[in-house]
């Protein structure tokens, strides 16, 4: 039962996948597990699809854990999956949202990396693909998208943690998401969840040029963070990737924005340095709770502003 699941703990991939099965079984009319492909090491990749029916409804994408060591993101996504499921039919906002749109939630976007953080190197961030001519493995999957690919803020060195890979979408984990997004064709929002440093960002990262929708996305982001902050007063900054962190090319939300998904955002959850990627498990639920408030605001805004 999902009721006995310990949301305040970090879990391995097997346990998370098993939780997903339980959640789907508990809400068969709301959730399906979409197998979007397999990882480099042949692990299945799943997105949870929350849908109340209809064909090719407008949809919102949320992914977590593309950088495997950012454990609080996978853990928060588990909590959020359960929150969406349990709030449907109870919370008017979630009910109305799912009456009009579908939500796709990918809890473990980089399963090979996640397993590697549990078994070999807790600090692993990248995929696990092998590069010919190099003894170093893996590509930074958030430098591998076809948006300013290979530009500033990504490394051409396969040993670097921000290695962009041999070509755009070379990583099957990225390609699987790209294919799903392109095949679907009706995503209105794409939200990627990372951790640490407490930021909510919008495009661009590959250039410091402002996007045409900057003022709208900035105001949506600011309002979302006001909601997030209302719970525990966690401090967040809002801005474009390039302006509030650094120029970084090949990022997912730049690609989604450039293909026409206007409401593209990236979260950076807790913390700010005292624990880094080793955030104590007792902070999972507070982090997920506050993130949910911000996420919900964005989702409601997307529902209310069709384009």
């Amino acid at each position, binding site marked *: 039962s999902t009721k*006995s699941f*310990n949301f*305040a*703990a*970090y879990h391995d991939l097997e346990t998370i996948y098993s939780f997903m099965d339980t959640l789907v079984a508990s809400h068969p009319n709301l959730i399906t597990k979409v197998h979007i492909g397999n990882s480099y090491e042949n692990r299945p990749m799943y997105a949870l699809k929350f849908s109340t029916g209809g064909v090719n409804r407008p949809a919102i994408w949320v992914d977590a854990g593309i950088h495997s060591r950012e454990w609080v993101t996978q853990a928060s996504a588990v909590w959020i999956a359960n929150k969406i499921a349990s709030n449907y039919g109870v919370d008017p906002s979630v009910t109305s949202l799912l009456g009009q749109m579908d939500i796709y939630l990918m809890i473990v976007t980089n399963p090979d990396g996640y397993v590697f953080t549990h*078994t*070999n*190197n*807790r*600090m692993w961030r990248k995929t696990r693909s092998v590069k010919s001519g190099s003894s170093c493995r893996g590509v930074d999957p958030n430098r591998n998208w076809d948006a300013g690919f290979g530009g500033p*803020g990504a490394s051409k*060195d396969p*040993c*670097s*943690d*921000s290695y962009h890979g041999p070509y755009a979408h070379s990583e099957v984990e990225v390609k699987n998401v790209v294919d799903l997004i392109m095949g679907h064709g009706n995503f209105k929002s794409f939200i990627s969840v990372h951790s*640490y*440093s407490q930021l909510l960002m919008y495009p661009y990262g590959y250039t410091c040029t402002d996007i045409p929708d900057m003022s709208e996305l900035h105001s949506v982001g600011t309002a979302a963070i006001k909601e997030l902050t209302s719970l525990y007063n966690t401090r967040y900054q809002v801005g474009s990737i390039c302006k*509030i*962190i*650094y*120029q*970084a090319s090949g990022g997912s939300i730049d690609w989604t924005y450039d293909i026409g998904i206007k409401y593209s955002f990236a979260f950076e959850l807790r913390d700010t*340095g*005292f*624990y*880094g*990627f*080793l955030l*104590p*498990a007792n902070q999972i639920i507070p982090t997920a709770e506050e993130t949910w408030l911000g996420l919900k605001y964005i989702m409601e805004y997307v529902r209310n502003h069709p384009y």
Partner: protein
Amino acid sequence: KELFNGDQVLRIHVESEDHIQALKELEEDVDSGLDFWTHGFSTERPIDIRVPHSSLSAVKDFLKKNNVPFNVMINNVQELLDREKSEMVSNAKMER
């Protein structure tokens, strides 16, 4: 299994263009095995770097020589990892 005994996370406070140049130099030194937890060098935001134990004194000396202000955010990464591991074991027991 890779261990992180004695690795520290340093928080660097960039205050000038000279500091940025020094950090770029540090970033290019791949042999030090530095793991930049936050990227992008600006005076707006601090930069956190996990420094392997073997490179600690060299990196700290380099920062001091270049007058780059820093402090130690995490004194021993492995201690945090051990705590995380034991927490996971105890959580798994609770679930069973």
